[in-house]
């Protein structure tokens, strides 16, 4: 589950710079003091045993401090920086319970801070880079570590009298409550075993996290976690020695400590590794910002983000009004394939865009936040564009529906006429015919009946014309070419045919094309001066192209103009286009093009 990067919210509550500075100064002071102790009383310290040890110890403390300082610079990682500085302090304090120091205060503080090193280092590596543990499990592990340190440190210190521990020359323990060697030993052991078990658990957690991470996160926190796991493993081994178990030979303890120091240096270097990665991503972000400044074309933002975030199938989708599902920049609905994750990008709590990406891509949310902020304007533009296109699409669909409905109405009307009024008239005619048979005697009656029959025939004829004008049967049964051909018997304007399409188009398109010809060659056409009409239609690359030349047409006749406008609407509703050429010597030329499958 990744958090939604909010474009407006700044990184959540960072500790102030003051805290970081304070911690740094503390680490600096403690470090200096520890160096002084090591120099003065090298005997009982680890660092004092040899030059390599000193160098390693010093490097470890120094690098923890440096890492802490470096992480404290950025607001987002400041919390982590603070933890690293604490770990540095704990590291340095590790040499303070040196039995040969002069000051009891120093000695006592050393006792208190005795078990603190490992937990604070574990804390710093589990909470890298944001300063928070990733899960409740990890948080609990950190807490248990500190608990163990508490037992080993302050609690057992209450009962530790150096004198009775075969150290008569040790300084006094200022915190001594009661001299109880047995209890001290027990508490010490408890603390140690707690620490050992805890260390094992943290190793598992750290390695587990590395294995489960997405590549981006693994690259970032992997070095820190693995170095930390190594450190804990070595520490665990030497702690078993101290707790009384003999898995590890006595001579190895020195090497274990050396190894631990080196591991700590590696941890700090791992933290610095993120600096390297960040530089690289910063360069990418800079490129991104520059490219965005060049107003990329539609869909270009998606390609850019896909490249920068290194997810080639990344999709940017927008939530627009009038659509339940998000659409891409071009206005078409975005399907979310299996295995991909949606992350909404928020501004002021409203979802502005949705990134569809591979799982784990947005683990490094810091970088993502920056990229997203840089892309803010691009996202706005594209979203606006997507909204507009979605609207246009809606309008198109609505127009097409209107035309389709009107076509359906016409067909229904024609059928109603055919099956209804026209049929009734034929039946009427039949009835009249039947009655005439029985009127063969009466001449007068026959005459009346004949007249009635004549009128009925005329009615049948007229109604047939009306029905044909509403919707011609040949168009439904034989298609556009046949219908235009048949039209020649029904119009007063002579129609000359050029090429006609052999390929069928959708009924809506054929209907529209037919009516272009029909509407322009009715009785009004002769009144407008049309002497003949030349019609040709062809089909190429999925488009039906129709040309009607009205020779002799007087332009700007109101009836003609209003019909042209109506036809243009009809053609337009099917995604087609119509143009009228009025200055041709032949007369008026109307050209219409419609995608065949509309």
């Amino acid at each position: 589950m990744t958090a939604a990067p909010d474009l407006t919210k700044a990184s959540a509550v960072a500790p102030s710079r003051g805290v970081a500075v304070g911690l740094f100064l503390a680490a600096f002071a403690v470090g200096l003091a520890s160096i002084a102790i090591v120099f003065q009383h090298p005997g009982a310290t680890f660092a004092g045993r040899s030059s390599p040890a000193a160098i390693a110890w010093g490097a470890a403390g120094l690098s923890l401090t440096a890492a802490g300082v470096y992480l404290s610079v950025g607001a987002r990682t400041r919390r982590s920086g603070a933890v690293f500085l604490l770990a540095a302090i704990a590291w340095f304090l590790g040499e303070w319970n040196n039995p040969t120091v002069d000051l009891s205060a120093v000695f006592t503080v050393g006792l208190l801070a005795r078990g603190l090193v490992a937990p604070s280092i574990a804390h710093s590596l589990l909470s890298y880079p944001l300063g928070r543990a990733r899960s409740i499990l990890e948080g609990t592990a950190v807490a248990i570590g500190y608990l163990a340190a508490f037992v080993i440190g302050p609690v057992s210190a209450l009962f530790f009298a150096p004198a009775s521990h075969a150290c008569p020359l040790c300084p006094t323990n200022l915190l001594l409550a009661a001299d109880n060697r047995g209890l001290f030993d027990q508490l010490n052991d408890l603390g140690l075993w707690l620490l050992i078990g805890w260390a094992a658990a943290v190793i598992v957690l750290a390695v587990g996290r590395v294995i489960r991470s997405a590549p981006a996160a693994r690259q970032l926190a992997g070095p820190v976690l693995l170095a930390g796991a190594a450190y804990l493993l070595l520490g665990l081994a030497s702690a078993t020695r101290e707790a009384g178990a003999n898995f590890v030979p006595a001579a190895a303890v020195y090497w274990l400590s050396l190894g631990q120091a080196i591991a700590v240096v590696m941890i700090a270097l791992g933290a610095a590794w993120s600096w390297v990665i960040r530089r690289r991503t910063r360069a990418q972000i800079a490129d991104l910002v520059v490219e965005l400044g060049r107003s990329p074309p539609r869909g270009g933002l998606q390609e850019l983000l896909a490249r920068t975030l290194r997810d080639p199938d990344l999709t940017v989708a927008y939530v627009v009004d009038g659509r339940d599902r998000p659409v891409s920049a071009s206005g078409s609905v975005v399907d979310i394939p299996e295995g991909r994750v949606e992350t909404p990008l928020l501004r002021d709590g409203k979802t502005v865009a949705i990134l569809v990406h591979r799982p784990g891509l947005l683990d490094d949310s810091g970088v993502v936040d920056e990229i997203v902020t840089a892309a803010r304007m691009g996202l706005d533009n594209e979203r606006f564009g997507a909204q507009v296109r979605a609207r246009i699409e809606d309008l198109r669909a609505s127009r097409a529906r209107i035309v389709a409905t009107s076509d359906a109405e016409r067909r229904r009307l024609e059928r109603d006429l055919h099956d209804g009024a026209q049929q009734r008239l034929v039946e009427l005619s039949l009835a009249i015919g039947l009655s005439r048979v029985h009127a063969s005697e009466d001449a007068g009656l026959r005459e009346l009946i004949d007249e009635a029959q004549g009128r009925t025939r005329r009615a049948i004829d007229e109604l047939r014309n009306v029905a044909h004008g509403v919707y011609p049967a040949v168009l439904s049964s034989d298609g556009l070419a046949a219908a235009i051909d048949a039209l020649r018997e029904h119009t007063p304007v002579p129609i000359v045919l050029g090429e006609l399409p052999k390929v069928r188009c959708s009924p809506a398109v054929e209907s529209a094309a037919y009516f272009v010809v029909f509407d322009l060659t009715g009785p009004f056409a002769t009144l407008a001066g049309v002497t003949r009409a030349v019609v040709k239609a062809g089909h190429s690359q999925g488009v039906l192209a129709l040309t009607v030349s009205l020779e002799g047409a007087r332009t700007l006749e109101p009836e003609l103009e209003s019909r042209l406008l109506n036809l243009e609407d009809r053609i337009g509703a099917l995604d087609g286009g119509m143009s009228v050429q009025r200055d041709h010597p032949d007369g008026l030329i109307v050209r219409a093009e419609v995608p065949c499958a509309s």
Partner: protein
Amino acid sequence: MRVVIADDAMLLREGTTRLLEDAGVDVLAKVGDAERLLEAVGQDHPDVAIIDIRMPPTFTDEGLIAAEKIRSAHPDVGVLILSQYLESTYALRLVEELPERSGYLLKERVSEIGALVDALKRIVDGECVIDPTIVAKLVRRPRDPDPLAELTDREREVLALIAEGRSNHAISERMFLSPKTVETHISQILGKLGLEGTPDDNRRVLAVLTYLRHA
């Protein structure tokens, strides 16, 4: 004469039946769709099947399709299509393949009992029958340029009768001309239109209709 009638409108079916029976024609079956029509023709073997062009299920050209099926399966059975559509397209579709024993009349023709029975007789005789109204419209169709302008009025009349499928004998009776005169007219007309070489009456119908469609 024995016929079957196919029309989805009951009133028309009944009315036509009555008219025909009054005129002495045997109506063997009355059906309402193409499937039953084909069954009836198969069973009863009428002389002519009278078919409404528009029937269920699609109400477009079922009748025409059924007529084609009957003509190929039972060549000795004539078909007479009745249609409210004044479309030479449908008429041509019917006679294109097999002009013999085929007819296309406007539905209202049923009220002229004489015309109906006459058409039936002609079909049984093997002729081709095209409704005069359809032919008239076809002949009168505005043309530019107009090749029919070369014909005299008389010739135009004869042309129309040829297109209706009438035999020379019928034409001579109709126009009160001698058969010889009729023959002369006809060869002149066909010459002017460039349609020589069609001796067969029925082929001649087709040639003229096709010419009139495309000129």
